[in-house]
């Protein structure tokens, strides 16, 4: 998977972390696969983190997650309100969308 190193101020919502962010003691603060959000800018700054590794564009075949369209996520919102962090969770959400209309089996 293609990665690139960016600084905290370059974070754009939806970027995917490709290496864990750790503090000085090696403790993991944010894990690989996490979708970055606006709030992470402040968090990472307060943690004193300078650079982080994210998935770079043009990497369509990667196994990372893709964001789901707002309107679809909205339909699930009462039951499921989290964003996928990897392809497995992507598929869980796809399944949830398939079964959203169905009755209890």
């Amino acid at each position, binding site marked *: 998977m293609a990665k690139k190193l960016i600084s905290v101020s370059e974070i754009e919502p939806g970027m995917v972390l490709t290496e864990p962010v750790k503090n000085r003691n090696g403790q993991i603060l944010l*894990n690989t*696969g996490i979708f970055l959000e606006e709030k992470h800018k402040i968090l990472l700054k307060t943690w004193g983190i300078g650079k982080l590794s994210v998935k770079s564009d043009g990497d369509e075949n990667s*196994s990372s997650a893709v964001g789901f369209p707002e309107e679809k996520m909205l339909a*699930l919102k*009462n*039951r*499921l309100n*989290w964003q996928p*962090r*990897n*392809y*497995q*969770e992507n*598929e*869980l959400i*796809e*399944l*949830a969308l*398939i*079964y959203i209309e*169905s*009755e*209890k*089996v």
Partner: protein
Amino acid sequence: MNIIDKILNSINNLPTLTTIYTQLSEAIDDEYASNQRISQLISSDQASSFKILKVANSPLFGIQRKIESINQALLFLGHAEVKNILSTLSIVKQFNTRGDSHGLRPVDLWAHSIGVGIISRNLALISGQKKVDNYFLAGVLHDIGKLIFLEFVPKEYMFAVEFAENENIPIKDAEKEILKIDHTQVGQLLAEKWKMPQYIQDVIQYHHSAQTPKGSSHLLSTVHISNIMARIMRLGFSGDNLVPQPNMMVWDEVEIEKGDLISLQEKIVNDFKNAVHTLLVD
């Protein structure tokens, strides 16, 4: 008497698992016991052997030819698997699976548990696990605490279910609020009483976090994912309609390739319908 005492008393008063189960467990754990001895033991209980054969022939186990005797079941499925089928049957038998207590049907809770068992086994197979005997049983038993609530304090449990729905919170939190004890704690008490193996106890106690104090395991992580998938696929009813996000660490434990979760769904639904029918309806 307060609710917790009532539940504890009820668990204390539960019978031990049926004699045939205990005898069989001993026979299977005794490596010198022959297939013949084991099959004699099971066959002496006609109702049990009939059911075991039905379950053994269900698509879940994927045996191509028809299994017609306990001896064949032992041969094709192995001792551990037959023992687990019998455990499942003995435990289901201890509970009331019929009727409707205050609007919540035990059969729906059971169906959720069976769904988790089915998915667990399928995920174990697809993630390349060689020994898959324990996954179905572990999945079926993960929520046994909820069945105890429904059996012994149905009215109060219904309050908890309603509370979860109104507040849009997980049933586990609602149980804590209304009953002051949750299904993982109650389940653990029963697991101890029935001397269930440690891996089952871990699943009952830690399936929400997928972490025991000693770490995780492939089995525990699999049941954690399966519980979420059963909720997503609406197999039965688990007490609330929420779908939590998995613990990120389970994806390191259980290797699932791209496309596997989607392509499994048809088999899961099929296995599920069949198992519910065999275990609950007949």
